[in-house]
């Protein structure tokens, strides 16, 4: 107990202290969940009842409103994880460890959803569940990378050591992702090119774009909610472990 010698915390240290995080994040989970639910209700209503059928794809175009947000999250979560990895390696921050671990499994889930909805959409429109096309293949490789990270987390007993090594692998992967993407595109391409974020404005009418954007925000808020809950769970799980260890030692001493 050397509280007197510790230097005073600034606001960021206070906010990012795991104990403090548990206190303030408690009041954030419900609002985040409510925002996400509201956006889902609006977005799904638009997607099902207030958006046109595609003149070629018909009703199957509505799969897009689930597929595209998941594909976006599959990349967004990796960026969040890479930022947390920098936090782990540079500042050695325990909250960054927890954020990285919570994001890994979520990223794998969202990427799996993107692949699954993509397969369902590909069957009626392209006539196949799977095609070795550039974008699909790089998403599949991304999925395998997520699974590798999850496996690496689970292979260590000591989660503090695991965090640093996982962070190294996450950053090596982050450097590698553009190379993988480029090489796979070079290898084979069939998928339609990016059509929302591109120079010269989006390539779709607002009647489709609005539900798509709402659904993207809905899924992003879903991720933020789940990430917050998973981080809280992880911190509590570590506390339980520490308490168990303490009790075990006390038992031996007695």
């Amino acid at each position: 107990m050397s509280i007197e010698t510790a230097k005073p915390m600034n606001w960021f240290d206070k906010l990012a202290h795991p104990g403090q995080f548990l206190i303030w994040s408690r009041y954030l989970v419900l609002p985040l969940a409510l925002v996400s639910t509201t956006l889902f209700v609006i977005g799904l209503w638009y997607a099902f009842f207030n958006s046109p059928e595609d003149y070629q794809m018909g009703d199957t175009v509505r799969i897009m409103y689930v597929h595209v947000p998941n594909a976006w999250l599959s990349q967004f979560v990796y960026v969040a994880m890479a930022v947390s990895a920098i936090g782990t390696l540079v500042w050695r921050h325990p909250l960054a460890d927890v954020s990285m671990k919570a994001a890994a499994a979520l990223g794998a889930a969202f990427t799996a959803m993107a692949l699954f909805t993509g397969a369902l959409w590909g069957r009626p429109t392209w006539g196949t569940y799977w095609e070795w096309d550039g974008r699909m293949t790089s998403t599949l490789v991304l999925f395998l990378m997520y699974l590798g990270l999850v496996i690496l987390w689970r292979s260590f007993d000591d989660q503090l050591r695991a965090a640093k090594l996982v962070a190294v692998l996450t950053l090596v992967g982050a450097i590698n992702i553009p190379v993988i993407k480029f090489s796979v595109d070079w290898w084979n391409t069939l998928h339609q090119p990016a059509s929302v974020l591109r120079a010269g404005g989006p390539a779709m009418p607002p009647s489709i774009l609005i539900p798509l954007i709402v659904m993207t925000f809905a899924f992003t808020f879903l991720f933020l909610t789940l990430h917050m809950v998973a981080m809280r769970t992880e911190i509590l799980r570590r506390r339980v472990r520490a308490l168990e260890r303490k009790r075990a030692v006390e038992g031996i001493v007695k």
Partner: protein
Amino acid sequence: MNAFVAVVAHDLKLATRSFGDLLTLILFFVMIGVIVPFAIGPDKVLLARLSPGIVWIAAFLSSLLALDRLFRVDQEDGSLLAFRHATISLETITFAKLIAHWLTSALPLILATPILAVMLNMDMTIFWRTVVSLLLGTPALTAFGAVGAAITVSLRRGGLVAPVLILPLSVPILIFGTSAISANAGPDAEVAAQLFLAGISLVSVSLAPFAAALALKLTQE
């Protein structure tokens, strides 16, 4: 520099002294080429068409097999701890170990390629392209492998986890490696693929020692 050469020589001596390890590796590499025709049939035309992919898969699997000995022995006998007090940095030592590992695990495979070339009915141009593409691509394979081996060095079953981590990252090497041989994408595509392969190797070999040394340091904290 002296210490650098000493580490390379030390690793080379250890690897060549246990000649059985080296032979196992080469045998494994050749055996994959021997097994594949049993699986897909003895059609010589088909085998020649698939040969670039088969050779690269064989090289991939063999390099994964050799990976575990890169840092594990040094971790177990405490050499890695001693390295941290050496006159040269751990990054430099890792680079030296990378060179020695490539010389003892990748070069023998390239020397054994003629056997696969005969088995898989390669013609002469394809054979030379295969050798060039392996020479250009295997350094990157060793570099990625070193990062994976360093990350998993403290795990008892690291030999099983490391390949799962490395394989997705190595997809570009496989793509450009096979394109540099078969070149069905268009004229000059194989030259482009060779250049990409060389580029990936240069970047990964120059960055991997830092990532691997960082992982080794973090393991010992």
